[in-house]
């Protein structure tokens, strides 16, 4: 999650330090059958889309696909590897579209950009908006959306 607590004063990034237009590209990650099985176990979502290989042979997708929320969760972890964890605060909102399937063996990465900064409702905080795209090995955008985060302002 982009919701790590500040570890030390030195590594703190404040609302004032983040610039609209800053862009990030994450490393890639291959989504495996094990990821899907573990996510089914964690979430309790055993929909046949994710768990029944035989049923899915005759489906639109032809095989099992990753849970959409697994893709969302993996992209969050991928982006945490390039954006310093301290730089963005707790999630305030997510707007998200699942545009295509993530299949077993697909390798995804995240392309993200700070698209807006605005005042937060709480004093001492601002809100940053991050646009994110999850892209597979063929360059197809499989998920995209934007997240709003609460970020502390630099103490006076």
């Amino acid at each position, binding site marked *: 999650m982009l919701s790590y*607590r500040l570890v030390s004063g030195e590594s703190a990034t404040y609302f004032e330090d983040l610039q609209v237009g800053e862009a990030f590209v994450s490393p890639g990650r291959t989504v495996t059958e094990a990821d899907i099985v573990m996510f089914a176990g964690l*979430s309790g979502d055993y929909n046949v889309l994710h768990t029944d290989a035989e049923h899915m042979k005759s489906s639109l997708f032809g095989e099992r696909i990753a849970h959409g929320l697994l893709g969302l*969760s*993996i992209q969050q*972890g991928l982006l945490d590897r390039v954006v310093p964890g301290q730089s963005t605060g707790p999630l305030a909102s997510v707007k998200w*579209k699942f545009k295509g399937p993530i299949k077993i063996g697909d390798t995804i990465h995240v392309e993200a950009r700070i698209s807006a900064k605005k005042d937060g409702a709480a004093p001492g905080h601002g809100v940053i908006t991050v646009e994110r795209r999850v892209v597979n090995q063929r360059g197809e955008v499989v998920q995209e959306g934007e997240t709003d985060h609460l970020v502390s302002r630099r103490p006076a």
Partner: protein
Amino acid sequence: MTGPVARAEAERRLYFEDVRVNVPLETPGMTLTEAHVGLFAGITSSRPADSAAVPDLIPLCLSSGLGWRVPLPPLVVLAFMGFDWQFFKPTRVGDTIRSISTTVAKRSMREGGVVIEERQILNQAGEIVQSGRLTLLVAKRPTA
């Protein structure tokens, strides 16, 4: 397969035609544990610095499984198309969440139908911790 077993199986599913609008459905609860946080950390490679803090996406992810534990057959979801979600309160290890879902709109398409679901996740104090709207593509009942 078209035998009686296959038919009985089909009857234990809800299709687009069966979806009732504006009927709230409440799930059982689920207590958030360090095991959830650890598993999620393993899957995402991301771990909060504070080990009792539950990553914001965990309640959302668990709510999709809680939806399978209501006294209704499962909905035949063909695809999760998108969602719009807000986070109001953080959750901690030891909190117990449940969710309440209501279909607020449905629209028939050529292949299946679109269902808009409003979902709230509540904690043990009855406070809304997260809520939003999900858009699902649901199968129509197969014609015999």
